[in-house]
């Protein structure tokens, strides 16, 4: 039983679930260390490939865990790893959300809500800037992001997929133009 790959996946990912404060990015280095150096599930080259795929896939970046589980033990591995990463943190979040909701309307609740709201906004803005800085889109990425935001504020019901197509087209056009110069 000690070598059961599914138990190994649980033992590795449950702790990551509990310490993943600030979301997926904070635990990627730790997951890499475990998957490559400690458990020898894959080479670092394979890990980088999985990381790139998890970025290209929709959904939270933590789908990286799903891919590692799939690599280790197929479909059951993918399911077990995903649950191991999402269930523990979700139980904590559920408990907090429940307590939060029970005290709705009290003065301290209103103060907490109004006090935390601008922090949520600050964090989302910081997240947007860090993605734009890390990515390899350069100034064009900033322009496309700003343009997409302005378009959405102007036309809130505009479908985001249309924006994504436009964004992709702008990047393709820019690359075509720069290759011709």
């Amino acid at each position, binding site marked *: 039983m000690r070598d059961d790959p599914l138990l190994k996946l649980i033992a590795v990912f449950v702790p990551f*679930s509990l310490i993943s404060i*600030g*979301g*997926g990015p*904070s635990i990627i280095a730790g997951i890499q260390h475990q998957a490559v150096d400690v458990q020898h599930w894959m080479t670092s080259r394979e890990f980088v490939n999985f990381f790139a*795929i998890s*970025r*290209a896939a*929709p*959904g*939270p*970046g933590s*789908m990286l865990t799903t*891919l590692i589980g799939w690599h280790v033990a197929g479909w059951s591995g*993918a399911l077990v790893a*995903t649950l191991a990463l*999402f269930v523990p*943190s*979700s139980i*904590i979040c*559920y408990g*907090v*959300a429940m307590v939060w909701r029970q005290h709705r309307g009290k*003065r301290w609740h*209103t*103060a*907490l809500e*109004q*006090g*935390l709201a601008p*922090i*949520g*906004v*600050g*964090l*989302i*803005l*910081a997240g947007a800037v*860090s993605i*734009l800085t890390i*990515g390899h*889109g350069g100034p064009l*990425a900033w322009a*496309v*992001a700003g*343009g*997409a*935001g302005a*378009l*959405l*504020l*102007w036309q*809130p*019901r505009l479908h*985001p997929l249309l924006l*994504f197509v*436009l*964004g992709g087209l*702008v*990047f393709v056009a820019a690359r075509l133009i720069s290759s011709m110069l």
Partner: protein
Amino acid sequence: MIDNRPSSPPVEPPTLIALFTVFLRIGLFSFGGGLSGWIYREVVTLRGWIDEDEFMSGLAVSQILPGANVANLSLYIGQKLFGATGAVVALVALLSGPFFVAIGLVSAYSVMTSFDWTETVMDGVAASAIGLLLVVAVKGGRRASRHVGSIVALVATFLGVAVFHLSLLLVVAVVAPLSVWAAWHRSAKP
């Protein structure tokens, strides 16, 4: 350019099925990040299931707690609408699409990378997805601008995390008590 009219969101009563399909769609189409922006659009702008303050504070709580931010945020919204059932439905709906797509992509990976333009297109998609986040920031910023304390909290959080690269936990641990204290102080006034 920016529409300053207070938007009155069309309130469509939430059902478990609607909750499931909305989060399934968010999970499936949220390429390039910007998921919380997409959740904001579907749940606050289009459907009015929760109000802006609830969303923004839920967003802050989701980021402070362990776990993927969007997973926590989905759970928070599902819980608010339908309790435990809603929390499970929202979370399962959010994750089930990406689960299969990610595994499908591994199989298609070698084909995809041999097509040299994939990365260029994905970069463009990712950049436009950030636009969704900017909308949330603009809306939230507009709300925050009603109180000096909120503006200071917003700017301090942004500078601390994005410019000075301080740890998110440290920034929140310092800014949150002050911001909440200011909001508490405001609420005392008639």
